[in-house]
């Protein structure tokens, strides 16, 4: 396995943020993202996903360290204070780093 180091950002936040958050991530250079629907509990109380107003999402972005630091800084400044949100960063191994790093050119590597 020819592995390379990569960085994974996981953001758990209110589902209503999805459109704006995703637009920001892409604008700042993310080459992709993956979202799943979740529920949970945190400092802002219970989010039981009974209806759209109490649902959470879990967003994952793979990238290199520099990209993830940019994303974390932006998300923190822009959303962390006012929205239910938690984020964490994990070092992982990836297969083809070009897929997450190259900015221009849309070839599916």
């Amino acid at each position, binding site marked *: 396995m020819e592995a390379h180091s990569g960085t994974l950002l996981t953001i758990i936040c209110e589902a*209503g943020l999805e459109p*704006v958050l995703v637009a920001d991530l892409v604008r700042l250079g993310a080459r992709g993202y993956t979202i799943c629907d979740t529920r949970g509990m945190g400092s802002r109380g219970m989010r039981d*996903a*009974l*209806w759209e*107003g109490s649902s959470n999402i879990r967003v994952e972005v793979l990238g290199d360290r520099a990209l993830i630091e940019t994303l974390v800084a932006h998300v923190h400044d822009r959303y962390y204070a006012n929205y239910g949100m938690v984020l964490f960063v994990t070092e992982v191994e990836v297969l083809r780093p070009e897929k997450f790093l190259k900015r221009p050119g849309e070839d599916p590597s």
Partner: protein
Amino acid sequence: MGSVDPVVLFFVLGVAAGLLRSDVRLPSALYESLSIVLLIAIGLKGGVELAKTALGEIALPALAVVLMGLGTPLVAYPVLTRLGRFRRPDAASIAAHYGSVSVVTFAVGAAHLTRLGVPFEGYMTVFLVLLEMPALVAGVLLAKGIHRATDWRALAHEILCGKSIFLLAGGLAIGWLLGPEGIRPIDRLYFDLFKGILTLFLLEMGLITAARLQDLKRAGAFLIAFGIAMPLVSAVGGAVTGWWLGLSVGGTTLLATLYASASYIAAPAAMRIAVPEANPALSIGASLGVTFPFNIVLGIPIYHAMAKAVHGLGG
């Protein structure tokens, strides 16, 4: 007991399930599906009725209804900041929720009148659509003032293309285009099942309301009092406006119900993006935890009585 509305009983069942921590839980996909069908059905029904009315005839009344409707946020905001000592964004957001309307409360009100055999103007749905929006704009203005940088285009998009207005307006247009004949092949789903679907929806609303009651403890007594007093005040405004515009007793009841209802679909979504500093637990706790159950169980009959009283006095 023959006079209780099934819809109210299902709501109570949902609240009971929530409070007793039963594992009754409607899948969120069902909740979303039911709300889509309800929005379309209400729109279609309104559109079919609208086809019977000359549009010019209701243009001026519609304008009046919207302008008078702005009374709610304009009264709510100073009450919340001065008496309630809420922070500016919180007061503005709550005001926006109460200025906007609840589609489900409207549907329960209409079902209530239908059950009692009280007729109402078919074009009330148009007012429903028109009333959803302006209060949200007022809320943003109250929160930020007119000078602060607000992304008005984004807000306009958020509101106009929001699920709730889009499906209501879409249904209205389709109902209007098709008319009563054209709609017939699809009325089995949208009209015949309407009341049954509403019971499922209110079961779920009961569960959601029960879950909100915790938020209420944090929010305190003032907000609970506000959640009951505000709709009563707004309903008086609605009843008088309805009578003044020459609506029937049924139409007047529904206008009072609209004014009294507080949004919990369009408003939370719009306020969360436009006024992020506002704490949603306050506005949703009040609108879903207090005002929605109050309106469903007690409010609607009261507003009906109001409408009869105003018409009695006036006429």
